[in-house]
């Protein structure tokens, strides 16, 4: 019996808990991608860099707060700095839209032009990040490191295996729930949110109904910037801030958005968790779990791992490929907010 429990605790410690945190981060990122797609109708390649640059603003603000001696008790100071970072990212996105995207919108440019333009924006952002904060790692998580340490868990339960929960993991999940709830409340309950859905559903009819497209686009960017900054900051807190890592997050985020059905917010969230858990389940070494569950004579001598962790990005790609082959519209098909 305790063998089964021990096996479960290993899974929880190395897959479930990290998966919930990582899934929340991907979900928030995919939500931003989906929002831009639903309203502006292109896949925003600059989204990863938007996350990175928003996080950079948060880090700068965090440093400011820390040097002023302001902290957030056991929680990371970055949470206090978050509004500042979000605000800066919103300004940046709105300026980018005014200087770059608006022109193509007026031209009614094709989606592929937007794609290239967004790649250009991505590199400008990337250059800005390197210019301001440099290409190096930044660890900016402070406060208490663990909510529950592995040792405490063992003492509490008397099991062999420990279950550790990092503060950043809990913060990630809670923040993600609050953010997602706010986004859905906005889209489904407020007049402005509904007008965004209407615009995404049927642009011509929205115009006939007197919905102002410029306003809808502006709000879409504000939400995207906020979501990107939150997602980026949570990821940075949980792991660490490396500018180029956010580029690599682009693939899982796109995969999450497409798995769920691009343009569909519920799909984006589901997709985020699908990708995160697949990645962890496929690259997890089950050796210790099997050792607990199987009779001693059958104890494995390999890692019992489907795919080495080096290939975790391949997992999102494979899922993406399967979705494109089997159901290109995504699990929650349909393009609408």
């Amino acid at each position: 019996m305790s063998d089964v429990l021990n096996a479960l605790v290993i899974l929880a410690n190395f897959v479930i808990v990290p998966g919930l945190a990582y899934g929340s981060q991907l979900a928030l990122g995919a939500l931003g991608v989906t929002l831009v797609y639903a309203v502006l109708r292109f896949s925003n390649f600059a989204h990863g860099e938007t996350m990175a640059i928003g996080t950079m603003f948060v880090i700068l603000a965090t440093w400011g707060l820390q040097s002023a001696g302001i902290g957030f008790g056991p929680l990371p100071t970055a949470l206090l700095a978050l509004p500042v970072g979000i605000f800066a990212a919103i300004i940046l996105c709105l300026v980018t839209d005014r200087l770059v995207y608006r022109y193509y919108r007026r031209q009614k440019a094709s989606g592929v032009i937007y794609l290239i333009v967004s790649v250009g924006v991505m590199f400008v952002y990337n250059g800005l990040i390197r210019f301001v904060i440099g290409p190096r790692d930044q660890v900016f998580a402070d406060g208490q490191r663990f909510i529950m340490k592995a040792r405490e868990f063992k003492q509490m339960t008397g099991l062999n295996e420990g279950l550790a929960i990092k503060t950043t993991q809990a913060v990630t999940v809670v923040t993600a729930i609050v953010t997602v709830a706010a986004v859905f409340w906005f889209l489904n309950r407020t007049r402005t949110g509904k007008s965004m859905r209407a615009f995404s559903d049927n642009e011509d009819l929205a115009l006939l109904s007197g919905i102002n497209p410029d306003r809808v686009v502006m709000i879409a960017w504000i939400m995207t910037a906020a979501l990107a900054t939150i997602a980026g900051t949570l990821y940075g807190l949980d792991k660490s801030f490396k500018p180029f890592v956010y580029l690599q997050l682009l693939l899982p985020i796109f995969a999450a958005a497409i798995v769920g059905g691009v343009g569909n917010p519920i799909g984006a969230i589901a997709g985020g968790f699908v990708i995160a858990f697949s990645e962890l389940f496929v690259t997890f070494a089950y050796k210790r779990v099997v050792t607990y569950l199987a009779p001693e004579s059958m104890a494995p001598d390999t890692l019992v791992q489907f795919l080495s962790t080096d290939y975790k990005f391949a997992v999102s790609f494979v899922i993406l490929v399967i979705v494109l082959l089997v159901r290109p519209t995504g699990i929650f098909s349909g393009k609408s907010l």
Partner: protein
Amino acid sequence: MSFLIGEEMVCGYGGADILHGCTIGVEPGEIAVVVGPNGAGKSTAMKAMFGMLGLREGRVLLQGEDISHLKPQERVLRGMGFVPQTNNVFTSMTVEENLEMGAFIRRDEITDTMQQVFELFPILHDKRAQPAGELSGGQRQQVAVGRALMTQPKILMLDEPTAGVSPIVMDELFDRIIEVAQTGIAILMVEQNAKQALNIADRGYVLVQGRNAYTDTGAALMADPEVRRAFLGG
């Protein structure tokens, strides 16, 4: 001088003109129907009058005021409503949200208007929490008309409201449209089903190649043997 009138309209897409000086008007409480063969410019005339297509010549007057330069959204604010032929509902939104979006430009309380729409189309009240995309063709058209009525327009323009619905549904839709007209709203519609439409029309326009061919009351047009032979199939 009509309540809404498009005078001597000349316009088209790209280089070629489709309308060559046609005039269409409608009075409050009256149903005006535009019929004619395919390619006569019926839908083009509607688009021109609603400002979705620029006029090369001629003008559009609303209550005697020249509104030719106004954008469609501004015409909505002046009391004009438009129901496009296709893609005329927000498919992913509920019936109620569709109506709400119809009233987007209004800043005042809209519950009364919504109640009126529900009285007019009782089925919409039953289905108000359902996404419009899940409704039948006829119900969708009701949502589309209801959406346009939410701005409390003085004139409602419909582009082939009965396209693709069954004859029974068509009759019911026409009944509703008569009811709408009886509330004092001017109705201008383009119809493919010329006979049935002229039956309910106070005024009928027969367009041929972008020009007015016949203009009279609906009943008179129905009685005109030439019109019957050429356009109504005998």
